[in-house]
C-alpha cells in the first residue's frame, strides 16, 4: 500500500511521485543484493544527486530545492522505504551540509555549498569518537592552528560513508575548554593524513559503510573552519535536531515497508482454509502496526511543520526520533511474526528490516538521550 500523504503544493506531489518511481524502479530492486554483499551503493547517490534529492531542504540560490522539511522528510521516507541504507545516507549527507549552510560565511557558502548540493559529492558527519558517544563533549581529536592551516590529529568513530565521502563535517578540539573548546571543520575527503579504518561488521545497514576515520597531521585550511573557534559543539548539536527528524522519517519509511510486506503476505498466505489476515489474532497485530506507522509519521511531521514555521522544535524532534524509531523496532519485529518461519529466513526482507530498525534506536542520539533532551526542555519551560 502506498502511504497516503497530504502535501502542501503541486510540485511537492510531483516530487513525491518522482521519488516513488525512482525508489520502485532503481532502489528497491537492488537493495537486498547490496545489503547481502555489503556493497556501498555509491551510484544510487549519484542518481539521487542528479535528480536533486541530495539538496532538497537548502536554498535555491546555492542549488538546493528550497523545500520545507515537511516535504523533504516525506521524500526521504519514500527513499528509506525502498532502501534503508540509502535513506539513512541521504539524511547523513543533508546533515553534513547543515553546518556550512546555516553557519558558514557567505564567502564559504558561495565557494563550497553549490557543489555539495549539486549531487556529485557525498558528505559525512564526524562527531563521535570511541570515548565520546552520548558524551560528545568528551571528544579528543585535536585541531592545532599552524599558520594558515589547522593540523588535525585523532580518531573519529562510527562515521557513515567513511572512505566514500567527498567531504566531512568534522568536530575537533581547538582548546581544552570542555564543551566550549570544540570547533567545526569542512574537511575534504582527499586530505593527506585522513584515512578510513576497516568497515565495522554491523548487524544491519550492511550496504552503508561505517568506519573509523583516522587523522594523522591532516592539514585543513583555516578558511574551512565553520563558525568561530569553540562554537563547534553547539553547531553540531543544533544540526542534530534536524538530523533526528531525518532519522525519524527513515524509521517511518522502514516501518511502512515492513507493514506493506506483512499485509501482502497475510492476504495471500492461507491456513485452515482462509487467508491468515482473516484471523483476528493477525488482524489486530496488523492494525497495531498500521497505527504505529501512522502515529509516528504524524509525530515527525508535526515537528517538521514547527521547524518550517521557525518555531522551536528541539523537544518535538527528540520525541519524533524516539517515537518513530521505537515504532520501527516494534513494527519490523511484528512483521517477522506475521510471516512466521518465512519471516525468519533471508528469503524475505522482513528479518533485514528488523536488523535495520535496531540501529535507529541507537544512532543520532540514543533513545535514552532523546528522553534526556525532552526532559531538559520540560525543565526549561
Amino acid at each position, binding site marked *: 500500500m502506498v502511504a497516503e500523504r497530504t502535501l502542501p503544493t503541486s510540485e511537492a506531489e*510531483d*516530487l513525491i511521485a518522482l521519488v516513488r518511481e525512482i525508489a520502485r524502479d532503481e532502489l528497491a530492486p537492488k537493495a537486498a543484493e547490496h545489503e547481502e554483499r555489503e556493497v556501498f551503493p555509491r551510484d544510487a547517490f549519484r542518481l539521487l544527486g542528479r*535528480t*536533486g534529492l541530495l539538496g*532538497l531542504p537548502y536554498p535555491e540560490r546555492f542549488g538546493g*530545492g528550497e523545500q520545507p522539511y515537511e516535504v523533504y522528510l516525506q521524500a526521504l521516507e519514500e527513499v528509506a522505504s525502498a532502501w534503508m541504507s540509502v535513506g539513512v545516507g541521504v539524511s547523513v549527507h543533508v546533515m553534513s551540509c547543515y553546518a556550512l549552510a546555516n553557519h558558514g560565511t557567505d564567502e564559504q557558502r558561495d565557494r563550497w555549498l553549490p557543489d555539495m548540493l549539486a549531487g556529485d559529492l557525498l558528505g559525512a558527519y564526524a562527531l563521535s569518537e570511541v570515548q565520546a558517544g552520548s558524551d560528545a563533549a568528551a571528544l579528543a581529536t585535536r585541531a592545532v592552528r599552524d599558520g594558515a592551516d589547522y593540523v588535525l590529529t585523532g580518531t573519529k568513530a562510527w562515521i557513515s560513508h567513511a572512505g566514500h565521502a567527498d567531504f566531512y563535517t568534522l568536530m575537533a578540539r581547538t582548546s581544552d575548554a570542555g564543551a566550549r573548546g570544540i570547533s567545526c571543520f569542512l574537511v575534504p575527503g582527499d586530505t593527506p593524513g585522513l584515512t578510513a579504518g576497516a568497515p565495522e561488521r554491523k548487524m544491519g545497514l550492511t550496504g552503508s559503510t561505517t568506519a573509523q576515520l583516522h587523522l594523522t597531521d591532516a592539514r585543513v585550511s583555516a578558511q574551512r573552519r565553520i563558525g568561530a573557534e569553540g562554537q563547534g559543539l553547539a553547531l553540531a548539536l543544533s544540526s542534530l535536531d534536524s538530523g533526528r527528524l531525518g532519522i525519524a522519517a527513515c524509521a517511518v519509511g522502514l516501518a511502512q515497508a515492513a507493514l506493506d510486506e506483512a499485509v501482502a503476505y497475510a492476504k495471500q498466505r492461507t491456513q485452515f482454509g482462509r487467508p491468515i489476515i482473516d484471523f483476528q489474532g493477525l488482524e489486530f497485530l496488523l492494525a497495531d502496526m498500521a497505527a504505529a506507522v501512522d502515529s509516528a509519521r504524524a509525530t515527525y511531521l508535526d515537528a517538521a511543520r514547527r521547524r518550517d514555521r521557525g518555531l522551536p522544535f528541539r523537544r518535538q524532534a527528540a520525541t519524533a526520533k524516539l517515537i518513530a524509531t521505537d515504532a520501527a523496532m516494534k513494527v519490523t519485529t511484528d512483521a517477522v511474526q506475521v510471516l512466521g518461519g518465512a519471516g525468519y529466513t533471508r528469503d524475505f526482507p522482513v528479518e533485514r528490516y528488523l536488523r535495520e530498525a535496531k540501529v535507529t534506536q541507537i544512532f543520532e542520539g540514543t533513545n535514552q538521550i532523546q528522553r534526556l533532551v525532552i526532559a531538559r526542555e520540560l525543565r526549561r519551560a
Partner: protein
Amino acid sequence: MNIVVLVKLVPDTYSERKLSDTDHTLDRDSADAVLDEINERAVEEALQLKEAHGGEVTALCVGPDRAVDAVRKALQMGADKAVHVSDAALHGSDVITTAKVLAKAVGTIDGVDLVIAGNEASDGRAGAVPAILAELLGLPQLTHANKVTVEGDTITVERATDDGVLHLQATLPALVSVSEKINEPRYPSFKGIMAAKKKPITTLTVADLGLDPAGVGLSGAWTAVLEAAPKPPRTAGERVEDNGDGGTKIAEYLVGQKLI
C-alpha cells in the same frame, strides 16, 4: 531542429487495467495513469537530438484533461513546450481519427523538422498511429527505430528485424517511431519539475483544429469493440516430476502449447 514528440497517458502497467462495461473503451478511473514508457523513450530521443543539434522540443498529446499529467512529465524531462488536444468529443476515437487530429495539431506548430512517436502504446497496442500520421502529413516514415542519426537534413535509423538490421534513410522533415531498445529515458530532476511549471501548454479543442466534432470519437470510429471479457485468472499450472526426463517433459509441454 524543431521536434514534435507524441506523448500519451496510459494506465500504469503495474496496475490492473480494465475496459468500461458500457462502451468497452478504456476505464481510465480504474488504474493509475502514467506517461507511456515508450513515449518516455521518444522524449529522451528528442532531447538527445536537441542537445546535439539545438532547436526546440514540443510535446503533443491527444487525450482527456487528465492527460496533462503525461504532458507535464515530458516537460519535466526537458521538453520546451506542449500542445494538448482535449475534447470530450474525442472519447472512443480510433487510430485513424487520432492520427487525423494529431496531423492537424502538428500543423499548428511552425517549422517542424521531425516528429517522434513511440512505436506502439501499451494500452491500445494498435501500433498504427505513427504510420497513418506520416501518410497524412506527407512525411517519410522511419518506424521501429533502434537508433537515430541526423546529419544535415538527412536522417538515418536502424531497425532490428528477425532477418537482420535494416537501415532506413530519408530527408527531413520526417517521422520516426522508436522501439523500446532505443535508449534509457532520463528521470526528471527536481529542477525540471520546477521549470516545467513555467513552460507553456497550448490546449486545443477539435473545433480549434477545424475538425467537425461529429466526425470524431466513438461514433466516427471505423472499428468497434463488440465484446470484452477480463482475462481468466491464472491457474495453478502443471507440476512436472523430474525422474531424469524433466527436460523432455518440459519440451513436450512447450510443444503442446505451440511455444517451440
